[in-house]
Structure formats: C-alpha cells, structure tokens
C-alpha cells in the first residue's frame, strides 16, 4: 500500500468518524449484554462442578451433546422443528403481508385504528393463557367445539388431546393467530413508507389494484421480506417453547407431532437440571441456524447484494 492511497483512505475514514461515534452506545451494549456472556458457550463442553467452579470444571468434549442424537426421537424432533418452522416462515409472512395490504386499503381512521389494535390482542395474551383458551375450545367434555360445533354438524366428539393428526393444523393456526398482528405491523410500516407518487402515477395509467400490488408494493417490501426470512432461517432449529409445550398441554399422546428440539431438551433435563447439557442443546441449535444463514445469505448476495444481511 503506498502513501497516497493510505492518506486517501485516512481521509475517507475521518469523514465517517461521527457515524462510528454514533454507533458506540449500541455496540457497547451488545458487547456487554451479548458478547461478554458468551464465555458461557464453553459450558456446553464441560461437566460443571460447583466445588471446582465453572472455570476449573472438567472438559468433557462432546459428551453433553450425545443425548441429542442417541435417541430414537432424534429424527422426529428434528423433522418437526424444521417443518413447523418452514411452514411458520412462509405462511406467517404471506398472511402478515396480506393483512397489511388489506389494512392499507381501509381509509376510515376509526375502522383502521380498530383493526390495528385488535389484531395485536392475541400477541398480548401469554402463551399459558392461550393454552387455556385453546383448551376451552378443545376440551373433551366441556370444550366449545365438542359441545357446540360438532353436534351441530352431526359429528361425534373428538379427543383432541389424544389425536396427534390434528395438531399440525391446530399449532399452525394458533401460531398465526398469535403472531400475525405483530409481523403485520412491520409490513404496514413498510407499505406506508412507500412513496405515494408511485401509486398515483399507476392510477393515472389505469393500473388495477392487483397490478399495483404486484408491481409496486411487492418489489418495495422485498428487502424486508428477505431480511425476515433470513432471520427466520437462522432460528430454524429453535421453536416457541410455550406453543409446543403449553398449548398441547404436554400431552404425551401428541408427541409424534408436537415434540420439537426445545421440548425434548426441557423434558430430558427436568430431572437432571444439567446446565452443561442445556447449553449444548442451545449451541447445536445456534450452530445449525448459523450455517444455514451463511449459506442462504451467500445465495441472496449472488442475486442482489443490497438485500443480503451482511
């Protein structure tokens, strides 16, 4: 590197100093809150003994990871986790976008305010209560569906909590119902940020509503969709513990379709309470997600550099 380029580079950097300063509080917080505690990742490879302390505890290699794979459930929990997440990402995004677009069509201030607040309601109810509400619907003898809906259709009552085949649908519905309002607001903000002039021009050209959505709205919110998808892929081995544990009421008969990595780990360690093994599970989930994101981010970069995360 010769002196002129170095000087040029120095000048260029100097121009950005205010930007770097601006980032300091945020980066400092990430360092303290996220990076400092990362020494805890080492716990995944240790057999913790409190008499020795975390630091002096013995290294055990990959022993803490064994229970995740040495089980006949390994296939089921991995399959369930992946499939649910895939469905949640795709369907979750589609429905949130649809609601946001519809919401944007509502002109009345009152009506819009009303819709906007009520779709957030499910997000505010804790998952334990959601499990009670679902139970109010599905309970064998007192549930709304068994007592009112099925008789109306002339059908026999169903033991919902013993029949695994219904649960992929139930869990998906609950997940969408609970989360749609949240992600819909992101897309609403994105749509509202689009310059009105585009639409006005399109209307003058006589473009149909559908055309406008396809040619203006979608392209404009693609970066947000890409980002949310990438982040979703990063957490594809994680799942919403409450949804899979509380909502099916931890019913053993449903494990075939409700057991995911997080619930497996929880049930396996309830008795042992081993922080090494739970750290190992987290590490494994993160690592897989991490690799998948790197790959998908690389693919996104090939297509459109601006939409990539990094």
């Amino acid at each position, binding site marked *: 590197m010769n002196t002129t380029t170095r000087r040029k580079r120095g000048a260029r950097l100097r121009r950005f100093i205010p930007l770097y300063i601006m980032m300091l509080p945020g980066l400092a917080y990430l*360092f303290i809150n996220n*990076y*400092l505690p*990362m*020494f805890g990742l*080492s716990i995944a490879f240790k*057999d*913790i*003994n*409190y*008499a*020795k*302390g*975390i*630091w*002096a505890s013995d290294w055990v290699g990959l*022993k803490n990871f*064994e*229970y995740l794979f*040495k*089980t*006949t*459930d390994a296939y089921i929990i991995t399959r369930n986790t992946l499939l649910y997440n895939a469905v949640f990402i795709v369907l979750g995004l589609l429905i949130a976008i649809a609601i946001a677009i519809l919401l944007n069509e509502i002109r009345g201030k009152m009506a819009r305010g009303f819709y906007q607040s009520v779709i957030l309601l499910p997000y505010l109810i804790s998952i334990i209560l959601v499990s*009670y509400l679902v*139970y109010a619907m599905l*309970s*064998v*003898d007192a549930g709304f569906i068994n007592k009112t809906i099925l008789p109306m259709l002339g059908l026999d009552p169903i*033991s919902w*909590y*013993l029949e695994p085949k219904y649960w992929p649908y139930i869990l998906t519905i609950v997940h969408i119902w609970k989360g749609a309002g949240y992600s819909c607001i992101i897309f609403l903000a994105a749509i509202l940020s689009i310059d009105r002039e585009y639409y006005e021009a399109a209307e003058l050209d006589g473009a149909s509503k559908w055309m406008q959505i396809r040619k203006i709205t979608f392209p404009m919110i693609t970066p947000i969709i890409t980002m949310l998808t990438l982040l979703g892929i990063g957490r594809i081995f994680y799942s919403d513990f409450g949804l899979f544990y509380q909502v099916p*009421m*931890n*019913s*053993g*008969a449903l*494990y075939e379709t409700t*057991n995911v990595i997080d619930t*497996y780990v929880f*049930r*396996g*360690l*309830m*008795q*042992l*309470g*081993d*922080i090494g*093994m739970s750290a190992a599970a987290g590490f494994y989930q993160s690592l897989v997600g991490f690799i998948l994101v790197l790959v998908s981010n*690389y693919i996104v970069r090939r297509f459109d550099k601006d939409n990539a995360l*990094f």
Partner: protein
Amino acid sequence: MKNIMRGATLLMLCFVLILSACGKGGNGSGSEPGGSANPGNQQDGKVEEITVAFPLVSTSQQDLQLVEDEINKISEEKIKVRVKFLPINAGEWAQRMNLIFSGGETLDLTFVSGLMYSNMVAKGQLIELDELLDAHGEGIKQAFDEKYLNATKINGKIYSVPTVRDLAGSYGLTMRKDMVDKYNIDIDAIQTLDDVENLFKTIKANEPHVVPLVPGGVGQSFRENHVFVDPLGDFMGVLPDYDNDLKIVNMYEMPEYKAFIDRIRKWYLEGYILPDAATNKTTTFELIKSGKAFSYMALQKPGFAAQESKASGTQMVTKELLAPVATTSNVTNALWGIPVNSKHQEKAMQFLNLMYSDADIVNLFDWGIEGKHYVKEKGEADHIISYPAGQDATTIGYNMLGWMFGNQFLSYVMKTDDPDIWKKTAEFNSTSRPSKALGFVFDASAVKTEVAAVSNVVTQYKLPLETGSVDPDKLLPEFIAKLKSAGMDKIIAEKQKQLDEWAKNNSVQ
C-alpha cells in the same frame, strides 16, 4: 467473505480476552462483596451473620421480618448467630438456586429439595456434614432414629439432614365423607382395588354427575399416587416389594404394573375416571370443592384426612390401601444442607441444631410470634394453639409449611387438629417397614445421556397409560420397546452396580 472472516477473528479475540478476564472473576468469587452483610445493628464482634434460604409459598411476606428479628434474639443469645433470611418463591426455587451456586453467592444454610439432592451432591454444591454433626449437631442426632439420618448418606457421608416429620409413606384413597355416609359405605372393609372398584360402581350408579376418581394432583398419574415399589429415586429401575433381594427391575415391565394400568383403563372406559385426567389443569381441591369429584388417591400420613378437609373445604375421610413403608425418597423429601460457598459452616450447623432442638425457634418458623400470629388455648395442653380472635389463616400475615423447618415434632398444634398428631406421626415412623434399600441414593451422572432420553420416553407414555386414556395392549409394548432403545437397561445396570456397592459397604444382606 473476507470481511466476515475478519469479523470472526475479531470476535474470537474478544472472546479470549473475556475468558481470561472472567476467569479471574470466577475464581475469586469467594470474595464476592455481596451486600448481605448489613452493619448498623449493634454487633459485639462475635455475632456472625449467616444467610438461610428456604422456599416461601405464601405471598404474604409482610411479617417475615418480624419473625426473623425474634429468631435472632434467641440465636444471638444462645449461639452468637444472626440469621438473614433469603426467602425464595417456591416456583422460582430451582432457577434461583442455580444462579446462587453459579454466581458463587453467599449462602450458609439452605433447604434442599429431595428431587435435587443427589444431583447437588454430584455437582459438589453441598459439603459433608458428618464432622460438623459430631461437633455441633447433638440436637439433630437426638431427634432421629438412626436409620433415618443414615438414609441421607451418599458414599458413606451425610450431605443433608432430613426434617423431622412423616418419614414414611402409605398410599390410599381420600373420599368425600357426605357420600360415604349417604351410601353407608364401610370404609374399613375396603382393602383391595377390587373393593375400590365396587365402591366406584355404587357412586357412578347413584350420582351420575359425580366423577368417582380424579387425579391426586395436577399432572399426576394414578400410579404415582399408588406406589407399590421402591422407586430408588427416579423410578428408572425399581425394587419390587421393597426387597426383591436388592435385584433391580424395570417397573414398566412388571406384571403388577400391567395389571394396574389395565384396571385403570377399565375404570376409564366405565366412566369412573375424569375423562381428561391426562391433561387436567384443575386442582384436586377445586374438583372436590365444586362437587364434581368423589375421591382421589394420594400419599398419606397421620392427620391426612383433617389436612385435606381443610384444603378442599369439604369433609374428607381416608382409607389406607398400601401399608406405610420408609424409602429413601420419603426421608429425603425435605432436607437441610450447607452449601459449598458457606464461610460460616460451624455457625450454620449450630443454628441448624437449634432448629431441631429449640421449640421456640421451631414455633417461630412454623407459626410466627405468640400473641400476634397465634395464641395458646386456655384450659388445653400446653402445645395447643389457635389464631387470635377474629383472625384466620387468610388474614394472619404469616403462613409457613411446618414440615419444612427442622423438627416438626416440637411444633405447636392448631386446636382444630389432632392434639396427638406428633405422637402418632412418631409411631408411624418407627413402625413403618423400612425398604431394604433405605439409605441408597442413586447418582445418575454416569448415565446422564440415557436419563435424558428415558425421561422423554417416560413423559410421553406415563400419563396417557396411567390415567387410562389409551389402550395398554397397544401402547405398553411400544413403551417398553422405546425405553429399551433409549437406554433403560444401561441405567438399571448402573443403578444395580451402585446398589450392590452400597449393600457391600453397609453390610446389607
């Protein structure tokens, strides 16, 4: 990509730096400047402060400080110790303990839940108490039959002391008295599950809206409240008939187990059992109180009927179905131990000794302050008490679980309860049959992988099978096969090895 590599290197660098920095912090955690030492009170230099942790159930904590002050008056005078309570909400207990131990925080004496005991010892969280007991634990030793104190030994050492309470357990049926009376049921004639079945038949026929049998607790199966083997801790490998020449078997393969779940299934199909017993979230007491349920199975002890009547607001009667047996699990249900972080181990033991020998301390813990939280009944025996006029459990501002604090036999008795309750409990303890494996504590650390896998299989099948919700003929073989592939045999082999070792060391034949 190059940038990312650079970022990753930077991260690694930070990481190493932090590791070394925190390493120091971690090692030096013994000198943690915890804000618990609280000068300001008159301190004559010799009085040392110890921190005492226990789970707290009642939300009404407001008078806890008053009780702490009263206890300190006694303990400062007698053993120069001032205690600082660290009450932990019961639901948060496991997590808080984890943080306290990992963070190396000050704690000198703690309640130990039986479920966590062997784990805590395996992870080095508790210190050996034998020498301290010899030096300062005279009162503790006197409070026990030796077999019970020895039941807490792990590798020949005592790491925790059980509280003095019912140390054995019998299993039985708890029923609504009004219905028992109404249908003239002779409860003494109920001996077997066949008799119970007939009883349910009567109830079902006459009271179509009442469910004859509901679970003994939320998330509990019927087998858990009708235990016919020594669970040896976790039910993964059990001792049939509390003896079996110390030969461990898989409970789920026992013919008795099959017979029991077959019967439960039959009851379920007959409509004797709550239909959603496997997923029910309504407490047993609510089910009884609302008139929906007739009976439940539960672990019993002397005075149980009175206790349950109070809890459900309904008169209940009980009938024992399985005679009392003392197993390690019963004894180690509630314990006290000294954490490895303690810097006042001797003082902690001295205070623990008071909890087993000083009636004033025990009653302060259990009932609060005389005159304020309870009054002695005039014209009754000295240990009979009641709430002050116009007060009851809801308004009193101090509620504790008596079995949690040291020697419950020194505790006063509410006038609504049996005045001889402690005499009866002591008799219950001394006459109950000890399991042959009483005193054996299993250490699962060698088979953690298998325990995690088996735990999952057990939670999957246990409740559905043991509440009758599914067909045992179809699911039991599947269950057993899955247990095998999850490594049940390896756990049993390890347990057998430890049990043999234990038997040799304790010369149990």
